[in-house]
């Protein structure tokens, strides 16, 4: 799915930096004073209980939400409309166009000004990798849950993003598909694509992650390498999370 000869690895883009980032909606502080630096290498895993703020964190990172206070910097975050974006996001609840599976993929290529003659081939390859060739002409909304998720993934990858945000992108996938996606993530990361991977699957985190961000009630409690995190989660909340307990 990803072109392994991609040159992203040659010159590393700037890291993404959160400085005192907070987000308040309706007087509720949903993200509270997050500071962190995400280098442009490898797979960063984001974990935390439901409602912790993981999806909001990704939205901030993608520039879809503006922080109430603090700043976020990084080469891809503040890209202007109309620029060929190097950021792709797979939403937790995939946003699929009311078109066929095929048209959904063609759409993003078209928007990224992909030449027409390459378009058919690229779409075909993407559908093949996502194992959706049979569903090529099925309206996206009629696809099964897992098929929709695979379509959203294929659509995000087909533009060869430099940074890829995956919000629980394997939640509805069967074990084989999950395995494939994890492999693709590893490949992409190896060729210089930065991946931010939100998941609730502890084993998956161990398999794919390089570093881990643990968010709890809007706060970034821990940011460590995977290895360190599983040796010492660093907070009783993270420990409770790993144990499958509700803290307190």
């Amino acid at each position, binding site marked *: 799915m990803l072109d392994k000869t991609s040159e992203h690895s040659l010159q590393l883009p700037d890291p993404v930096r959160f400085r005192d980032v907070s987000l308040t909606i309706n007087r509720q502080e949903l993200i509270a004073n997050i500071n962190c630096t995400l280098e442009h290498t490898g797979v960063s895993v984001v974990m935390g209980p439901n409602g912790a703020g993981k999806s909001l964190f990704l939205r901030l990172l993608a520039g*879809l939400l503006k922080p109430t206070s603090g700043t976020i910097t990084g080469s891809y975050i503040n890209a202007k*409309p109309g620029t060929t974006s190097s950021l792709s996001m797979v939403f937790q609840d995939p946003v699929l166009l009311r078109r066929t599976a095929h048209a959904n993929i063609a759409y993003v290529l078209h928007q*990224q000004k992909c030449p027409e003659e390459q378009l058919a081939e690229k779409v075909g390859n993407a559908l093949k990798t996502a194992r959706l060739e049979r569903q090529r002409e099925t309206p*996206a*909304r009629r696809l099964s849950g897992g098929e929709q998720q695979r379509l959203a993934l294929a659509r995000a990858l087909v533009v060869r993003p430099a940074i890829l945000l995956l919000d629980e992108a394997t939640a509805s996938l069967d074990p084989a598909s999950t395995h494939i996606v994890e492999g693709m993530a590893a490949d992409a990361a190896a060729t210089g694509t930065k991946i931010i991977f939100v998941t609730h699957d502890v084993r998956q985190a161990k398999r794919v992650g390089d570093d881990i961000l643990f968010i709890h009630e809007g706060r970034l409690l821990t940011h460590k390498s995977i290895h360190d995190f599983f040796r010492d989660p660093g907070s009783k909340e993270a420990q409770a999370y790993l144990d499958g307990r509700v803290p307190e």
Partner: protein
Amino acid sequence: MGEIADAFWIAFNLLLSFDKELYSIIGLSLKVSLSAVAISCALGFTIGAGLSVYRFPGHRLIIIILNALMGLPPVVVGLIVYLILSRSGPLGVLGLLYTPTAMIIAQVMLITPLVAALSIQMLEELHLEYDEFFRSLRLTNFAKMKTLLWDGRRGLVTVGLAGFGRAISEVGAVMIVGGNINHLTRIMTTAIALETSKGTLALALALGIILIGFSLAVNAAVMLLRSNSKGQRYA
């Protein structure tokens, strides 16, 4: 009430007589209203998509004004267009008063607010659904508008039909700017008004029945096109 039964009979006979005059009046009605609807849709859909996508101070105010302009009285529109196109008006030299062009202009003014206001309502929800995806792709507003118009076309068809309904049935504005001149600017509704003022109510009703018949045909054609197009399946 006998008139209502009579009217169906007259309508039937009129249609079958292939009266050249009747058919040219029907033709002009359709020509004027379909042209007006085409222009109004081009304008109204663009305004609708634009207001879904662009946010700016005064946005809500514009929507309120558009909604209010759905209540623009046809006679007032007729008067304004009359004053503009009149020989002593600013565009008098064009000599457009009492021509089908003037009637199209008046109908465009009348139905564009309707089309725009309803389009916003139809596209708003779709935009809500697509918004974050659009922004994650860093699309220009123009690209967003194109996508919304295409994916929202099902609802927009109904909006266009509402505009067509208002245009084809309208009499106040076209009467003033068209003048209901026999063989030149007489259309179905002005003919109906004329027959009504002559007291030939059955004939007036018969013309009304024929007009509704043609509206029905236009609507059926559009709906069939819509459901045969692939659009249906993706909703």
